[in-house]
C-alpha cells in the first residue's frame, strides 16, 4: 500500500502574504497529501528543522517580498549540511523570471509564478518525488 505524500508548506522571510500558501496547502490536502503549514516569518533554520522533524517528502516555499534569492537557496544549503538530499524543494510567489535559473542552480526544483493552477503543482509533486511511496 502506498503511504501519503507529506508536504511542508513554508513561509520564509517576513512577508505576511499567505493567501497563496494557504490555498496550496488546502489543495494539496484535498489531493490526498498530508500537509503541514508553518505559518509566517520562518527562518530557513526553522523550516529545515520542521521538515526533518516531520519527515516530509516535499518543502513548498512561498515568498512575495523579493527576498527569494537570499532565502530559498539557504533552505537547500541547510538541508545539505544536515545530510538530507531526498526532500523535493520548490517555490512560488512574485518571482521575476530572470531569477529562476539562479534559483534552479541552487537546487530549487521549480518556481511557480502567479496564476499557476494548483493542479499543476500537484502533478509536479507526484512526478518529482525523491522518496519512494511504497512502504
Amino acid at each position: 500500500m502506498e503511504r501519503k505524500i507529506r508536504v511542508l508548506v513554508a513561509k520564509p522571510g517576513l512577508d505576511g502574504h499567505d493567501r497563496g500558501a494557504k490555498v496550496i496547502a488546502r489543495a494539496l490536502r484535498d489531493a490526498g497529501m498530508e500537509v503541514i503549514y508553518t505559518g509566517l516569518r520562518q527562518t530557513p533554520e526553522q523550516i529545515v528543522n520542521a521538515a526533518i522533524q516531520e519527515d516530509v517528502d516535499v518543502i513548498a516555499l512561498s515568498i512575495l517580498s523579493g527576498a527569494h534569492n537570499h532565502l530559498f537557496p539557504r533552505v537547500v544549503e541547510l538541508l545539505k549540511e544536515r545530510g538530507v538530499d531526498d526532500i523535493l524543494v520548490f517555490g512560488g510567489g512574485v518571482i521575476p523570471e530572470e531569477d529562476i535559473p539562479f534559483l534552479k542552480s541552487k537546487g530549487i526544483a521549480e518556481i511557480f509564478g502567479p496564476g499557476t493552477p494548483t493542479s499543476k503543482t500537484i502533478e509536479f509533486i507526484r512526478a518529482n518525488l525523491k522518496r519512494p511511496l511504497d512502504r
Partner: protein
Amino acid sequence: MTDFNKLEQDFSLWNAKVEKANEKHPERKKQFVTGSNAPINRVYTPLDQKDFDYVKQLGLPGEFPFTRGVQPTMYRGRLWTMRQYAGFGTAEESNKRYKYLLEQGQTGLSVAFDLPTQIGYDSDHPLSEGEVGKVGVAIDSLEDMEVLFDGIPLDKVSTSMTINAPASVLLAMYIVVAEKQGVSAEKLNGTIQNDILKEYIARGTYIFPPEPSMRLITDIFEYCSKNVPNWNTISISGYHIREAGATAVQEVAFTLADGIAYVEAAIRAGLDVDEFAPRLSFFFNSHNDLFEEVAKFRAARRVWAYIMRERFGAKNPKSWMLRFHTQTAGSTLTAQQPDNNIIRVTIQALAAVLGGTQSLHTNSRDEALALPTEEAVRIALRTQQIIAYESGVAETVDPLAGSYYIESLTDRIEKEALQYLKHIDDLGGAVKAIEQGYIQKEIQDSAYQWQMDVEKGERIIVGLNKFQIEEKPPKGLLRVDPAVGERQKERLSALRARRNNNMVISALASLRNTARGTENLMFPILDAVRAYATLGEICEVLREEFGEYQPNVMF
C-alpha cells in the same frame, strides 16, 4: 407614480415569455453571479425597491446616512487625492520617487516601508537579512526619516504611512522631522494605518498581542486629538482582508467589525467618542465587478453612520462619516499579458470614484511581477487623471444612485454585512473572533472557492485561463539594489557611534517604565526618537514588556 399591481402583472407575463424563449435560446449561463458569488437577477425594476425610503436609506450628499457621499458637493468641490503608494531601497531613493510623483501632479504622499521596519527590526537584525529596502523604504531612525522628507514641506503635503504595529514610532519621527522644518504638529495632515486587527487577520505584520496593541492605538487617538488634530489616527483596512480572498460583503463586515472594536477600546480607555471618532478613516479595495464595488462603498458608509449614531451615540456628524482611501485590487492583476492590467485598474478605479472615495491608489501593470517601474506608475496615475478630467463621472454626486440594480446591491451588502456583524458580536467582538480564527477561516474559504472557480473555468480571467498567448518574459522590471542592506547597516553603526548613548539609554528606560504603567506611550516614544534611539531599540523594549503575538495557524 408607479402602479405596482400593474407592474407585477406585466412582470410575470414578461417573465413567462422570456423563460419560454430561454428554452430555445438559453442565456449564456445557468446562473449569473457577482465577483463575490452573489446571484444576479436578469433585470431589476421598482419591484426590487418597493420599500425604498429615500430619506432613511440615501439622504442627501454630505448628510446622514452619507450613502451618497461624505461631502455635499463631492468631486465638484475637490477631486479625490491621487495618492500612489511608493517606497523602496534607501530613504534617498524613495525621496527622489516622491519628488517625481509630486512633479507629475500627484497630490499626496503614501509611504511604503520595508518589512523589517513594519515589524520593528533594525536593518542589522538577523531576521532583516535579505528584506532590507525590498517592499518599501528602510527606516531605522529619525536620521533616515529626515532624509526621506528632505525638501518636502510637511505643512504642504498630506502623507499616508502604511505602518501598523510600530505606528507610534513612525508618527513620532514624522512629528519631529516637521518640528525640525519649523512646522508645528497641528499643521500636519496625513494618516497612519495603525490597524493591528487586520494584521492578525490578513496582512501579517503584527508584533505585540492584542491588548497592548490596542493600548498603543488608543494612546495615539488620545495624543493626536490634543496635539495633531488633523491627523487620521487610523486607517481601518478592508483592503488586505479582500486581498486575502474575502468577498465584498466580508470586506465590509470584517472591516467595520474591527472599527467597532477600536471604538469600544477607546471608550473603555476613557475617551469621549466625539473626541476621536472624527479622525477615524477607512481603506477599501476596489475589484473588477464595477456595480458590486460601487454598492459596497455606499453600503459601508450607510452601515457605519448608523453604528456610530445609534450604537455609540456619537453626536458630531463627523463621527458618523465613513471617509476612505481606496486601492485597486493587486490580487486581480495577472503576470500574464501584464498590459491588460491597465484596463483592470481602470475599471476598478472607476468603481472607487463612482463609490465616492476620498483618495485613490491605482496599481501599476507590472505589480504581479515586481515593484512598479517609474513608467508603470505614471500610467497608473494618468488613469486617475483621465477619469477625473475626461470621463465626466466626477461632475455630479453619486451618479448611479437610484439605479434599481445599484440600490438592490447596496441593500443586499448592507443586510449581509449586518448579519456578519451580529455573529461577530455574539462571538464577543472582533478580537475574540480573530483569536478563535473565525474571521480568517471565512476568508480562507472564500479564497479557496475563488481559486477552484478559476481552475474549473467557471470564472474567466482574460489571459490566464482564456485567451492565452505565448509570451516572452517581461523586461526592464524594477530591481532593488541588494547593497541597500549593507548601506543601511553602515549607516546604523555610524549613528550608534555618533549619538549621545546616555540619552538613548535613559529615554529607553523611561519608555520601559511607562510601558509598565498606564500613562500615554507617545511621550516617551517621542523622547526616544529625538535622542535617535532606533526603531528596533524602541520596539525591543516594548517586545520585552508586552510579549509577542502568537497566531493561531490553520488553513
